[in-house]
């Protein structure tokens, strides 16, 4: 933490790359020895009603296990941050072990364990060696965390304090503030508006019962998927998944989230912050993971601002004018309509100019559509990079979890290139005209509006 981001300056779009490849998630590829056509995902339903997704990867003596629940912050209701608190308390004491013992059990066998709660998903990640004794200790610990978390009062109190500090830390960062303001404005009063970490007031109010009830309702087998990628065979994978899920309640799938309401007007939010730059976020509700317009919008966005250098927004904002280090556009597909986001950051005095260029660029793209040349380039980039996106177990785990959680077809990755190649100029043009509305977007600006430089 101290040094990662300071001894190296990654030059171009660290942020954009993360966004394109993690959020929009259109990575497709194969591992050479699995098949040349694409990744073969095996799937079955466990006795408790959970789905399991398995990809053998025998080359390295390790396995990634990811358990995903439909238990993200969209499930918080009026207790913002509860999904996140529940998720992070899972390994703070479980079964016969206190927190110290749990973390020691993982560390003794070199296992890496982490949890995360996003808006849709609550995730538990385990990466462990497949040495029999070490694997057993890792899996026993994971099972205990999943099935019998203690949620001790004192652990809750300490983590509340830590989250409160994290919330104050967010308020130091203009980009964090802009993000929170953006989701709140785009999804006003709807589940995706909820800040995943919560608010000072909501976090202070959590009781142990809140956490226990959230766990009981959402951490149930029917609301879970298990992803296993690594050097275990099918029988081992079946046994591992069964063991992890056996002690959980079957429970129920979380109820469907309400449909996202479209924006009816443009809104601009200016939030004063003592920073040298103004961070700008512009956008609207975008698409779902299973949206019929997904591919035309994905390919179109690649051209608009989703692929760094050469994309229109980066050309206009950075390459032609030097206005920002990072500028981008992306769709973040979710269970319900995740946002379409355009963003940049520039010194305060240039904020209006940069916003203007950004809006002109998107409006022109919608009006004229992409050129045939741009479409060929985008398709070459997307399909030609097929192999790059699944070249590690980590990437494969990420994709398979996404496919499993959102119920995409198991051949999703295999057919992806063909589907990209089938996208036409007319489809992109039509999808952008129907789905992207610059005159009804939320614009968030966080910066120092008094600065006169």
């Amino acid at each position, binding site marked *: *933490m*101290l040094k990662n*981001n*300071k*001894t*190296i*300056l*990654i*030059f*171009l*779009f660290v942020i954009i*790359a993360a966004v394109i490849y993690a959020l929009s998630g259109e990575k497709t590829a194969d591992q*050479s020895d699995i098949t040349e056509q694409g990744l073969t995902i095996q799937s079955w339903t466990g006795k408790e009603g959970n789905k399991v997704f398995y990809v053998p990867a025998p*080359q*390295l*003596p*390790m396995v990634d296990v990811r358990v995903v629940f439909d238990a993200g912050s969209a499930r918080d209701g009026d207790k913002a941050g509860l999904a996140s608190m529940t998720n992070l308390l899972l390994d703070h004491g479980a079964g016969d072990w206190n*927190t*110290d013992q749990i*973390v020691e059990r993982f*560390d*003794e066998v070199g296992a*890496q364990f982490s949890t995360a709660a996003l808006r849709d998903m609550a995730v538990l990640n385990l990466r462990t*060696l497949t040495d029999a004794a070490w694997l057993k200790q890792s899996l026993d610990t994971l099972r205990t965390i999943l099935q019998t978390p203690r949620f001790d009062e004192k652990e809750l109190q*300490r983590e509340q*304090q*830590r989250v409160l500090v994290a919330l*104050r830390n967010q*308020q*130091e960062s203009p980009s964090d503030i802009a993000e929170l303001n953006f989701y709140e404005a785009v999804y006003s009063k709807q589940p995706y508006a909820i800040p995943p970490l919560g608010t000072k007031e909501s976090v202070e109010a959590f009781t142990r019962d809140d956490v226990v009830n959230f766990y009981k309702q959402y951490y149930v087998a029917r609301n879970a998927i298990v992803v296993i990628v690594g050097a275990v065979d099918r029988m081992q994978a079946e046994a591992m998944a069964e063991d992890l899920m056996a002690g959980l309640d079957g429970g129920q799938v979380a109820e469907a989230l309400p449909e996202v309401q479209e924006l009816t007007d443009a*809104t601009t*939010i200016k*939030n*004063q*912050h*003592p920073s*040298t730059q103004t961070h700008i976020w512009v956008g609207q509700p975008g698409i779902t993971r299973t949206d019929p317009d997904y591919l035309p919008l994905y390919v179109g966005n690649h051209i608009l601002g989703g692929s*760094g*250098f*050469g994309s229109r927004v980066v*050309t206009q904002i950075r*390459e*032609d004018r*030097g206005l*920002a*280090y*990072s500028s981008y556009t992306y769709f973040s597909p979710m269970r319900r309509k995740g946002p379409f986001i355009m963003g940049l*950051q520039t*010194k305060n005095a240039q904020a*209006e100019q940069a916003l203007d260029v950004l*809006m002109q660029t998107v409006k022109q793209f919608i009006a004229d559509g992409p050129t045939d040349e741009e479409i060929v380039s985008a398709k*070459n*980039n997307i399909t*030609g*990079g097929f*192999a*790059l996106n*699944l*070249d590690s177990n980590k990437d494969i785990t990420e994709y398979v979890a996404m496919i499993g959680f959102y119920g995409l077809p198991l051949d999703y990755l295999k057919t992806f290139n063909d589907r990209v190649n089938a996208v036409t100029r007319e489809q992109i043009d039509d999808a952008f005209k129907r789905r992207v509305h610059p005159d009804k977007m939320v614009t968030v600006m966080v910066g120092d509006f*008094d600065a006169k430089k």
Partner: protein
Amino acid sequence: MRNLIYLLVLLVPCSVFAKQPLAQSRVHEYMLDNGLKLLVKEDHRAPVVVSQVWYKVGSSYEHDGITGISHVLEHMMFKGTDKVKPGDFSKLIKEQGGRDNAFTGRDYTAYFQILEKSRLPISLELEADRMRNLTLPPEEFTKEVEVVKEERRMRTEDDPRALTYEQFNAVAYTNNPYKHPIIGWMNDLDNLNVDDLRKWYTHWYAPNNATIVIAGDVEPHTVYEQVKKYFGQIPKSDVPTLKPRIEADQIGPRRVTVRAPAQVPYIMLGYKVPVLRTAKEEWEPYALEMLASVLSASRSSRFSKVLVREKQIATDADSGYSMDSLHNEMLLVDATPAPGKSVAEVEQALREQLDRLKTEKVSEEELTRIKAQVIANDVYQKDSVFYQAMSIGMLETVGVGWQKADEYLDKIRAVTAEQVQQVANKYLLDDSLVVAVLEPQSDAKRPQHNPAITIPPGH
């Protein structure tokens, strides 16, 4: 944990799982007549190749007045050669389904592409071209230096902790170039010009000052032939000799306070320590790495266990050390006070933990646990071809040699509790302590939780 992972990521050792066929993959080394070094590492899991060109130049090669020049030059490397128009480098790679980027550190500047394996020659041709034929158009420079200033604003000016780290280094070092930020001081960026860049480029961008690392689904000898084809004709040049610039002895503790618009206080402590390249005792860097790991390799380490969970004096506490630098480094410790705790209390608690390392031997349990993590990380890192390439490229470029990667696991496993105690007593000295404290300033313009103004659409 993050620190440990970061450190380890840079040092991919050979595997203890010798029975695994993949563990046999080794580095193939070649040298061209013009002094260009080539390192090839095979990994046949996916039909992908990572290509990296490492130059021995970075912010620690710079002097006062031109800080940040290596990084600006890195940006300008995408702005055209005699054959390739500004911006086209990345477009050509994208057209091939590839990704490309670059990074600048204190001791290196590196460029990389990731491609489907058959497309490696395209990347080599483009890199060979820009090793010598950069045009550095003034109009492109004028725009790009503004981009870099925006980058500095984003990364440093508007991030109170990054500002604190920058001030920390500025105070920690006197005559050693690590005192300067990689991205450069704003005033130096304001006054940089294209002639400065041209000189810098001519000095350092030469085959005999570079290492090429290729990793992935490739055959080493074929790669060698390809590299020779594209780079073999580039003549060797006279690369300047770097002055040692060894940091003057610190003769008393140093403190700096940073007042910035922030919400949460923060403290950093550091002690000057040797690295692989400078250590007189070869085992010392490994003992220092072990020392940092005992403090904060993971959530079972002392900082997390004692300071965060038991005493609840900090919400986060971390330590870090990189043994693969060109110059002597700092062993760093940083922490965020828990609500109601002062920075002074946190400093006291951190220093108690450091003192404990001097007076007590680390338990065998702790050592065993850390060694287990190191063994496991060694396997996990092989999941990333990119980082395999990165670790050998970095070791080679700072002058200790890629072979150190292979020794890492054994050297770490050999570290004893006595050695950890010895380095603690030798280096964690009050006279070489540096402390930086972030004092949040409650500003009249402090951020607001709720949107302040809603105005009609202006565009």
